């Protein structure tokens, strides 16, 4: 129930990877036989990734994770387009890989506009359009939010970006594999994918870079990836990412519909069984697998630990930020009251989630909530 944090490696993906650990250990950029055997596999994976998002293989660059992709998208654009301008527009609810990179860029001469969101986590397109200046070189807006699941109107943002000839990057780490993602229809120029969110291993990702979009590499060095990303390829990981993308593309919409039905059942069940809960995020424009709920009067971590003891994983704020003490910046941006932000808990379903899992959570949740509320000095009951 914490598949937005990470997903298990799919067994067929691991099977596909193993030969590249056991037999084919060559370096794909090397001329000799050991190298040639693997370069074909890397190119096949590139096609598989490209197909899932309707790109061409030459537009796919392999990376080590989603965070690297976001850093490359932002820093690589700022370097490449510095003669054109220095203004970036992003949103207040991006992943730290985007937000902290923007903060770094601000220290280095960029200006960044952080678009606010409403109570449902949605941006206002008119505000976006109004924020564009002569100096704007990039709009960076995520496809689906990792904490709340709120889906931004990517196509409309793409149209605005086109209209003003501004480059458009989307962090699609949470969207790919859960929604149909088509870079042509969406009009995006850069799009970031992370392997471990879609059944591929940790330590591999990809970025789509539209043909002709100039970028300065984040990692300089050898000629790998047509000079867009140096470093020896994580061959097995790349092979795994390719297959995971292919698998994600199969029955994408049926799978999404199944998860949505389960998620809706969980949501209804919680709202019916437990008083004083608040669902965070957009009621309809939301990733089909994601449910974020605040249980008033209870601090999130204590709830998670109770789940934990019952074998259920969930998260409070995002896994990536759980090292921090600040309540979630996403809840903050949505204007959620600080105590309720503390109470927010994310359930995110994945391919292995079943009806029984949902029933089990609905069974264990009420007594846990009751017990923790009894312990809370805030609880009026």
């Amino acid at each position, binding site marked *: 129930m914490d598949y937005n944090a990470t997903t298990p490696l799919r067994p067929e993906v691991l099977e596909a990877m193993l030969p590249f650990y056991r037999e084919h250990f060559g370096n794909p950029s090397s001329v000799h036989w050991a190298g040639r055997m693997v370069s074909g596999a890397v190119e096949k994976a590139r096609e598989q990734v490209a197909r899932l998002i309707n790109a061409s293989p030459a537009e796919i660059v392999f990376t080590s994770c989603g965070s690297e992709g976001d850093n490359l998208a932002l820093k690589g654009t700022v370097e490449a387009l510095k003669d054109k301008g220095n203004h970036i527009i992003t949103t207040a609810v991006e992943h730290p890989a985007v937000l902290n990179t923007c903060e770094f860029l601000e220290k280095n001469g960029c200006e960044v506009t952080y678009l606010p969101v409403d109570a449902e986590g949605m941006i206002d397109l008119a505000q976006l359009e109004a924020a564009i200046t002569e100096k704007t070189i990039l709009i960076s807006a995520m496809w689906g939010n990792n904490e709340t699941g709120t889906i931004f109107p990517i196509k409309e943002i793409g149209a605005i970006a086109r209209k003003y000839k501004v480059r458009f990057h989307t962090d699609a780490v949470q969207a790919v594999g859960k929604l149909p993602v088509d870079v042509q229809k969406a009009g995006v120029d850069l799009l970031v994918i992370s392997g471990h969110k879609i059944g591929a291993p940790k330590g591999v990702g990809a970025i789509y870079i539209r043909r002709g979009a100039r970028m300065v590499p984040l990692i300089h060095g050898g000629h790998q990836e047509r000079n867009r990303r140096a470093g020896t390829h994580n061959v097995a990981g790349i092979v795994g990412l390719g297959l995971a993308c292919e698998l994600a593309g199969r029955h994408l919409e049926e799978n999404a519909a199944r998860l949505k039905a389960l998620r809706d059942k969980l949501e209804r069940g919680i709202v019916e069984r437990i008083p004083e809960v608040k669902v965070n995020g957009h009621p309809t424009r939301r990733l089909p697998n994601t449910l974020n709920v605040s249980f008033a009067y209870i601090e999130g971590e204590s709830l998670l630990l109770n789940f934990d003891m019952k074998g259920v994983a969930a998260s409070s704020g995002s896994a990536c930020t759980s090292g921090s003490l600040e309540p979630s910046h996403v809840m903050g941006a949505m204007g959620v009251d600080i105590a309720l932000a503390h109470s927010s808990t994310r359930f995110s379903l994945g391919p292995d989630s079943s009806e029984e899992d949902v029933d089990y959570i609905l069974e264990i949740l009420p007594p846990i909530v009751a017990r923790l509320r009894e312990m809370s*000095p805030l609880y009026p009951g």
Partner: protein
Amino acid sequence: MYTEKVMDHFSNPRNVGEIENADGVGEVGNASCGDIMKIFLKVEDNIIKDVKFKTFGCGAAIATSSMVTEMAIGKTLDEAMELTNAAVADALDGLPANKMHCSNLAADALHEAIKNYKEKQGAG
């Protein structure tokens, strides 16, 4: 990341609740994370006879709350004033580095409750 002792006190917290007509009440908030703890005391002959707590906070906050109540019961007020946050964390076999601040709640709330008792005494 939590020790077994922490998990024990978290899952079976001792002395949860309120004491009606408590002799002393202390409430503190943790500035760094917004968590809150409230301690209720029953005092007889300068000795802490009973302690109860309520906590809105993380696992470490709940465990330290529970532990501090156990450590305080039976102590004289002076002895209880000497209970430190570090002693509570130690009694739990330690806390992860990024959770050390949570133990501040525990002893601080206890000390506030004792001060509150003394003020009441002074006033009464």
